[in-house]
């Protein structure tokens, strides 16, 4: 088989940070090349350079032996490189064929009328070629995620793509759809299409990929045939040989049980999950995206009532789906994973954002007690070390880390008993992270029970008193401090040893 893509000595820096250093990466026609690495290892930077989103600082990209420059996403498309993103770029209200031909519709001769029959025929021919059954005249809105992904890939193939980059393609798929996608990938290989497959799922990688490359801290640390590699070997390369020796102060968990979750099941999201959270304890759930933890957290907070099993709070069973207002009244708090969408109110000031949950309790004779609110706001800004020019500053101008601190400050209420945090440090810088960790430790020190979902293994180990690893909605194992084994946790998260 022939080498078609050759990226040589690629380097990229963002200000002082070296994101990629001397990276070599190749793709061969008819093969799947898996690309793995922890968050921040440089995978997406490399793919963005290939896709024309970022420009490389050093190195050469060759396609079929000829040097090319990819200056914009459209250049990548023109050269036959297609990126299939997790957030698909389809138009829901158009048909499958309408989407595939969007922007380059076929017409009846020179008339302005679109030739829907011919477009459908060509799409059907492509689908047949890959053994797929899908009606080209169905609206995309009516398709499931697997089918949508197929439409996106077919669209790429019909614009003469020979290299398809898939980013975590199975994260939103059912078992059945995964099989369909894998069959499709195998057929594409037979047709000589090259595929870059970004994933953390070891069983998938070893069943579909010929080559696996591991990145860590911006460099390639392993690149070999899957036939000659092993799940263990790949996982060890991801984490690095030297283990972090972070010593967390030992803490006796002696408090009462706050939360008890027993055999909680929601088909398709999580299955048979059981655990406890005690006063002052930090329990961290971890896994890959799609492991079911966010859904679980939402069930506990009363946002979703369609589960089997039992959730008890201070020994009392909770009514399923009782709603967030009741949860807050019971002393629970939630910081969501998407602060811009579900956390802050962007046009309002820092002050108004912090004050929101305190308004109820700060009313005197029907009017809001402004002075009391000011005092609360000042205290909250101080306690969380939020950096803002003034409390009147509009929150949308703050950095991600400072917005996140304000989301936290809502829950510094002395009545708080259980705080649920979804990806508490997602997309925020190192300094803000340290502040957030401090706030979490302070709350735990005050006796608040804390349940965290984090996808970052180092953060998990740093914060947790207890860790639950999840894979596809099921608990793999539970680790208690200090018996954390990073390699084993990563293997759990990646589904290693579970077969496919």
């Amino acid at each position: 088989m022939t080498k078609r893509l050759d990226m040589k000595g690629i380097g990229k820096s963002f200000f002082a940070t070296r994101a990629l250093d001397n990276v070599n990466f190749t793709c061969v026609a008819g093969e799947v090349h898996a690309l793995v690495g922890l968050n921040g290892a440089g995978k997406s930077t490399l793919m963005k350079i290939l896709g024309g989103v970022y420009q490389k600082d050093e190195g050469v990209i060759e396609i079929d032996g000829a040097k090319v420059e990819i200056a914009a996403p459209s250049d990548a498309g023109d050269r036959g490189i297609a990126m299939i993103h997790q957030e698909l770029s389809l138009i829901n209200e158009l048909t499958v064929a309408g989407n595939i031909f969007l922007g380059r519709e076929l017409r009846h001769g020179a008339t302005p009328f679109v030739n829907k029959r011919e477009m459908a025929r060509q799409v059907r021919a492509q689908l047949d070629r890959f053994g797929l059954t899908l009606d080209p005249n169905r609206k995309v809105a009516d398709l499931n995620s697997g089918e949508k992904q197929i439409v996106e890939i077919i669209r790429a193939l019909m614009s003469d793509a020979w290299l398809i980059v898939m980013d975590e393609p199975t994260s939103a798929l059912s078992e059945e759809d995964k099989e369909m996608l894998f069959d499709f990938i195998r057929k594409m290989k037979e047709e000589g299409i090259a595929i870059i497959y970004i994933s953390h799922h070891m069983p998938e990688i070893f069943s579909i990929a010929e080559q696996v490359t591991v990145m860590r801290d911006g460099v390639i640390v392993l690149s070999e045939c899957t036939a000659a590699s092993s799940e263990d070997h790949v996982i060890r390369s991801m984490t690095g040989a030297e283990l972090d020796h972070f010593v967390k102060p030992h803490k006796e968990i002696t408090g009462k049980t706050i939360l008890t979750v027993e055999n909680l099941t929601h088909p398709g999201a999580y299955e048979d999950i059981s655990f406890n959270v005690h006063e002052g304890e930090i329990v961290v759930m971890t896994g890959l995206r799609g492991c079911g933890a966010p859904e679980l957290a939402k069930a506990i907070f009363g946002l979703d009532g369609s589960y089997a099993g039992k959730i008890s709070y201070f020994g009392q069973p909770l009514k399923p789906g009782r709603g967030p207002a009741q949860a807050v009244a019971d002393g629970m708090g939630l910081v969501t994973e998407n602060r811009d969408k579900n956390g802050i109110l962007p046009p309002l000031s820092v002050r108004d954002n912090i004050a929101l949950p305190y308004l109820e309790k700060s009313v005197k004779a029907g009017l809001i007690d402004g002075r009391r609110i000011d005092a609360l706001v000042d205290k909250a800004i101080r306690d969380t070390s939020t950096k803002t020019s003034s409390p009147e500053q509009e929150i949308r101008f703050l950095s991600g880390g400072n917005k996140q601190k304000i989301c936290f400050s809502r829950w510094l209420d002395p009545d708080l008993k259980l705080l649920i945090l979804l990806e508490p440090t997602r997309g925020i810088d190192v300094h803000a992270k340290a502040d957030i960790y401090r706030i979490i430790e302070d709350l735990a020190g005050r006796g608040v029970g804390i349940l965290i979902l984090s996808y970052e293994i180092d953060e998990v180990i740093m914060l947790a008193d207890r860790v639950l690893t999840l894979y596809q909605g099921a608990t793999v194992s539970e680790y208690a401090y200090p018996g954390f084994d990073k390699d084993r946790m990563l293997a759990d998260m990646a589904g290693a040893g579970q077969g496919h």
Partner: protein
Amino acid sequence: MPNFGRLLREKNIIFVTLALCVLFYLISPRFLSLDNMSAISRQIVPIGLIALGQYFVVVSGNIDLSMGMGSVLFAIVLGVFFGLTGGVALGIVAVIVCSLALGFFNGVLVAKLKLPAFIVTLAMLFSAQGLSGLIIPRGQQIFLMGDFFRFIGAGKFMGLYWSFLFLVALFVLAYVVYNHTRWGAYVIAIGNSEENARLAGIDVDRVKIGVFMFSALCSGLAGIVLSSRMGFVQPGLDGNGLLLDGIAAIIIGGTLILGGRGTIGGAFWGLLFIGVINNALNLLNVEDVWHQVFKGAVILAALGANWLLWQSRQVEAH
């Protein structure tokens, strides 16, 4: 066997309209008389033109609030040219040129300067209203007389008003454009996701400007029809009432106010629905104030039901 529940859900506006017709017939048999049907067909033409232009704007994810007062302004442009020259052709050309220019202006502000359509067209609404009063002072009017206006206002072909036939033809044309040309697909695509449409290589700005030019042209035509029927033009015409009837028609016809979804057939039924209500309330001598209240209640019921059905479908889809 057809799935009746589904039919009722997707075509509910047809059933509601027919049910209202039966109800009005029971109250006053004159409602279903040939004369009255014919009157409805003529009354809905200006609303229908507004609805048609607005339809493409709304599906593209925008709104054009200037259509109603625009119609009044364009009617006055027609009147002024007619009054000055006594010729019709020049007046019609002037209306077409002015409306396309106004639509182009709206479209450029929305597409190129990225201003919200609501703001741009609201400003245009007030400007059009002001200009109308500037050209013809309040209380004055210009009479429109001659064969052309009689033809547009009251001409019939085999018992049907020419203006109604003209409207139906435009709806058919719009159906073909919406469902069978690239432009129609691009309007839907932009209404669903401007970003994704751009990524697919569509010239989003051009499509948006085109949408606003079309809506302004439709309001120009509505101005011509409206003034022809009345036989005079004056700045005090209720342009905003016309605009709101047009918007109500397409929303009742199942067009998603957020953009990206709708059918031309649905919009036509929504138009009939509005026409039936307007006519029946007049016919039944409902006092003017109560007329509006009743209309509001019926629209709320119809729209509320549509919205709930849409949401239930969203839930099913997950």
